[in-house]
């Protein structure tokens, strides 16, 4: 593991007002604050976080980074993120342990094979690296995957994105936080936004447990709680909040060389830098804010993992947990203005927003600085639920949401 820098960030009291107030100190809020200062020179910025910095989904995700999405709009924003990830340790002067070990998306049915090969072609047309592997090539790339034809759902092939991988989520958050702080951004922890200050249809600040704070513009980046917050400003968002669970094993010697995802038997597995096997699957079906899900979801994902990796049979589960993710009807994020003036929203990343962190921050900062969409986030505006120009990534994104 790399060394931590000796200084992280100040712990300031909030000022009476800022040019931009960002609600939510997860990866997206912190990246947005950093790019507001670094790309747009806006430094009277506060990030308000009700708990501790990056203690929400940023601390709970399985850190998979890839850009092999089907639709052009998604490929563009996630590939922009991947390019930023490739330079992020140097830019932020902090090793985020970005490991481009490759991501395999397994195919177990004829339909999976067709979807996968189609996605490889779509990715290549969009300049995203992608390959189709047959079962033998899968076994060569990841020798611990069970490619026997004698299982219920044999591996019929896989897509491979070699540039995809994982990063150390805490380091990512701390790196953005440290640089944003250095540029003058106030990162205020233990500060819960409880309401909005409005002048007609315009937001002019927020109410918090530490008192009112004025704001030229307010940007929500509160992941699973965005609709709760937005409703305080009278905005209804097309998102539903669901638990998403993950688990880790005890520490093991390096055995797992890449990231493996399977939609059909539904599990995804990688090995963390320290050695834990990190596993996740799909959301629990019901709406929830309880930061936990049901145990049968964990059982199913472990059964799937065992079928794919018989070698894991004796590994012990160390810890399971849940985060609250916000899912939109088309499984794509919402980044842009709301019907309330000066109130902007960044939400709906569902199960897959960690990989987008730098691009989410980059485009949201542009929107908060200029009041307008960046070309990369323009298609992800709230209006698409009225115009019908949906970006339907359910399944197409290579993961069932």
């Amino acid at each position, binding site marked *: 593991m790399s060394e931590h820098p000796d200084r992280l960030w100040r712990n300031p009291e909030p000022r009476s007002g800022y040019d931009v107030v960002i609600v939510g100190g997860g990866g997206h809020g912190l990246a947005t604050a950093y790019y507001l200062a670094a790309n747009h020179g806006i430094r009277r910025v506060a990030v308000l976080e009700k708990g501790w910095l990056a203690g929400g989904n940023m601390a709970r995700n399985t850190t998979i980074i890839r850009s092999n999405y089907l639709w052009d709009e998604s490929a563009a924003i996630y590939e922009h993120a991947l390019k930023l990830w490739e330079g992020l340790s140097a830019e932020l002067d902090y090793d985020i342990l970005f490991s481009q070990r490759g991501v395999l998306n397994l195919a177990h049915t004829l339909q999976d094979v067709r979807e996968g090969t189609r996605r490889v072609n779509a990715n290549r047309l969009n300049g995203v690296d992608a390959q189709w592997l047959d079962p033998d090539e899968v076994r060569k790339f990841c020798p611990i995957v069970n490619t026997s034809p004698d299982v219920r759902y044999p591996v019929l092939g896989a897509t491979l994105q070699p540039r995809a991988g994982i990063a150390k989520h805490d380091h990512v958050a701390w790196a953005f936080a440290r640089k944003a702080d250095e540029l003058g951004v106030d990162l205020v922890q233990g500060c819960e936004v409880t309401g909005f200050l409005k002048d007609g249809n315009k937001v002019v600040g927020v109410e918090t447990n530490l008192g009112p704070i004025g704001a030229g513009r307010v940007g929500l980046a509160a992941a699973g*709680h965005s*609709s*709760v917050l937005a409703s305080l400003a009278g905005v209804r*968002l097309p*998102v*539903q909040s669901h638990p998403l669970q993950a688990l880790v094993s005890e520490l093991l010697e390096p055995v797992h060389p890449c990231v493996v995802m399977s939609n059909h038997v539904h599990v995804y597995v990688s090995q963390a830098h320290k050695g834990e096997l990190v596993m996740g699957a799909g959301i629990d079906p*019901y*709406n929830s804010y*309880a930061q936990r899900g*049901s145990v049968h979801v964990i059982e199913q994902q472990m059964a799937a993992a065992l079928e794919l990796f018989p070698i894991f049979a004796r590994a012990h589960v160390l810890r399971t947990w849940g985060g609250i993710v916000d899912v939109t009807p088309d499984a794509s994020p919402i980044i842009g203005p709301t019907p309330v003036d000066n109130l902007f929203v960044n939400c709906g990343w569902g199960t897959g927003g960690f990989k987008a962190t730098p691009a989410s921050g980059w485009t949201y900062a542009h929107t908060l600085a200029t009041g307008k969409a960046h070309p990369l986030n323009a298609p992800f505006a709230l209006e698409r639920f009225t115009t019908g120009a949906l970006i339907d990534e359910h399944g197409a994104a290579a993961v069932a949401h």
Partner: protein
Amino acid sequence: MLLIPCPWCGDRDETEFHYGGQAGVPYPERPAELSDEDWGEYLFVRDNPKGPFAERWSHAAGCRRWFSIVRDTATHEIVR
């Protein structure tokens, strides 16, 4: 795992059920007169409260009937 009260079969494990989202969302009375905004709202926007939520479940692996319950989304307690 949730223990869900089917009105016909009694308390059963969550694994027997299928989730149907918010309860009591009526089909528009005059669909032909709806604006694009209203259609968008009807199709895509549902309540998402942190607290009591009236929702639909189907006892898919049991009597196969649909029913509504009120469940607290912050605690998972079934209120009614």
